[in-house]
């Protein structure tokens, strides 16, 4: 109990004011070890995200074009005004939102179906699960190329199938549809896996009880499974929505942003790498960050206490 004595002697004022629980040597050592073990991960994550974000905000307030470095100066919110009044930005923004909403909605339905199949199939469960992982694992760019060639009239099997002689990747709506298709194909398995984990949490007895109470298959799904799975569904939706909002690889390969199919990530990339305009690029980066934060905030509000990480500290 020597720690009791030293603690009181060292901080007599504090101990007097607030009866803080005194920590034993073992507890202190545990805290130290915990902080020490987390330090590298925390430092890397903070250095590589927090600092650049701050830096990004700083850059976004400047005129800074690498092609004309001499003209660098502080211009306040002028970059924001420029971006927000630019129709290309808004087109990209709407395109991104449309792709996000449509593809996540389709993924949710398909993912749920796939999850049910993987969870309940009576034949070849291992095969189905293995095969479903391939789209998840495959490099997005590779998959995008496959779809690109499939829809290109010269090389493709799909382009001529649907509209002979047409070139779907040169038209606005067909391009968007193909982008959504590529996105859905690639990420549905991931969605399905997250949902399957939720399905596994639905006790079989609960479904039996519902069946005894007179619920048919659809009612069992809607009234029993979905409510129990709600946390898993929300987690899956959150991750996929934010992921879809960053869409870049697929669009880059499929259309390079032609015909107004550019996403906000594409716009940022173009301004930075092609335009070498750090000021505008940073402004877009900040705007995307804010949008994502808003989406995440809305989701977390929806989650309530079911938010991931909200209680993973102690209980489990």
């Amino acid at each position, binding site marked *: *109990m020597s720690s009791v004595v030293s603690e009181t002697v060292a901080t007599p004022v504090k101990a007097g004011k607030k009866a803080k*629980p005194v*920590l*034993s040597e*073992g*507890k202190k050592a545990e805290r130290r070890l915990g902080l020490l073990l987390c330090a590298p991960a925390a430092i890397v994550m903070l250095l590589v995200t927090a600092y650049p974000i701050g830096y990004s905000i700083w850059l976004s307030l400047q005129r800074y074009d690498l092609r004309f470095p001499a003209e660098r100066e502080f211009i306040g919110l002028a970059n924001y005004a420029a971006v927000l009044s630019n129709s290309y930005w808004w087109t990209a923004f709407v395109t991104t939102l449309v792709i996000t909403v449509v593809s996540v909605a389709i993924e949710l339905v398909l993912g749920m179906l796939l999850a049910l199949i993987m969870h309940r199939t009576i034949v070849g469960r291992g095969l189905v699960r293995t095969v479903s992982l391939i789209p998840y694992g495959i490099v997005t760019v590779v998959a995008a190329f496959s779809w690109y060639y499939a829809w290109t009239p010269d090389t493709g099997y799909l382009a001529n199938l649907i509209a002979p002689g047409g070139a779907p990747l040169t038209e606005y709506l067909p391009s968007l549809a193909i982008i959504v298709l590529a996105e859905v194909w690639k990420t549905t398995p991931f969605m399905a896996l997250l949902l399957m984990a939720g399905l596994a949490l639905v006790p079989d007895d609960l479904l039996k009880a519902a069946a005894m109470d007179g619920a048919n298959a659809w009612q069992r799904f809607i009234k029993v499974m979905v409510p129990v799975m709600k946390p898993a569904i929300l987690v899956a939706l959150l991750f996929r929505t934010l992921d879809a909002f960053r869409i870049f690889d697929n669009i880059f390969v499929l259309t390079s942003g032609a015909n107004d199919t550019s996403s906000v990530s594409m716009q940022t990339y173009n301004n930075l790498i092609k335009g070498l305009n750090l000021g505008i690029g940073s402004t877009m980066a900040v705007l995307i960050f804010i949008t994502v934060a808003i989406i995440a905030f809305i989701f977390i509000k929806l989650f309530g206490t079911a938010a991931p990480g909200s209680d993973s500290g102690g209980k489990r």
Partner: protein
Amino acid sequence: MAEIVLDKVSKRYPDGALAVSEVDLTVADGEFIILVGPSGCGKSTTLNMVAGLEDISAGELRIDGQRMNEKAPKDRDIAMVFQSYALYPHMSVRENMAFPLRLAKVDDSTVRSKVEEAARILDLTQHLDRKPANLSGGQRQRVAMGRAIVRSPKAFLMDEPLSNLDAKLRGQMRTSVSKLQKQLGTTTLYVTHDQTEAMTLGDRVVVLRAGYVQQIDSPQFLYEHPANLFVAGFIGSPSMNFLPATLEGGQIKSPLGSFALPDRVRRLAEAANAPREVIVGVRPEHFEDAQLVDETASAGGVTFTAHVDVLESMGSEKYAYFTVEGELASTAELEELAADTGADDVPGGGAQIVARLSAASRIVEGGQASVWFDATKLQLFDPSSGANLTYEEA
């Protein structure tokens, strides 16, 4: 083989909570000691302190006369069986059992012969090359035992080793644990929640409550002469019935009727300077259907009439539950016992008297019954201190 001495051993947690308070216990060489009590009574903490898995806050632990407080678990030469068995899932049964010997750098041929010897004793020979995941609960339990006995430690510590088994298997394993301990003659400290294990296994039983030792004695003595209300209520199943009563001039007034105190009881109560208000304790088996009790025997007891709420026929005997006038006795200790057994969760469960009657009894559920009880066997308790006023040393 060793003698284990706990000399005023206490455990105080950093937040100030006292988990174990000044436990004095001398475990003789080869003795089988049971630590029993409701959850949170400090029995597992005591065991962990002996093991070295938890620090001793005050007092001294001696094994064979040597102070052990500062020794690491590995240097104490004692083996432990855990409630979850704690089998290493990545090792086969053979490797699990050999693990302590390998750590002690025992040579291969000795390891082999010792493991096979232990496997033979525990009937595990044909399972030696299987992984724990492929074993049944009972087999896993035996592997855990095997890992403990294989290196012939000075003592065994067992932390509720049977509580993860189903009732029937638990009964069988109880017998084999007892046999094994007698065969090996190794000093054993055994923690349990189950009072049947406490009654049947140990040479002596230590009853703990909230970190304090209540009584240390042989199981039979504890049953017949509980030191206080808590021990009386904890030991025995179904447990002792408690009723409030008043003592007046050698007479006792209780919900079971008014009657003269038997000589033995009166003598002890007077010696203990009993207060006016007391609690009467009657074991279920000290009741009988009045019609089955002959004249001479009935003289030593009291007969009363009550309404039979429920009658459970067990074949060999009958349990009758009936309600009596007035309240049942209630003290902090009894409430703790009720909470521990979950009786406070059962609506109306605590307001009944349980009597164990002969199978020959003809009383019927829902009817009135004339019930006799043996007044010479009753015990009196002080409601404020809980002490047994009729306690006698052996």
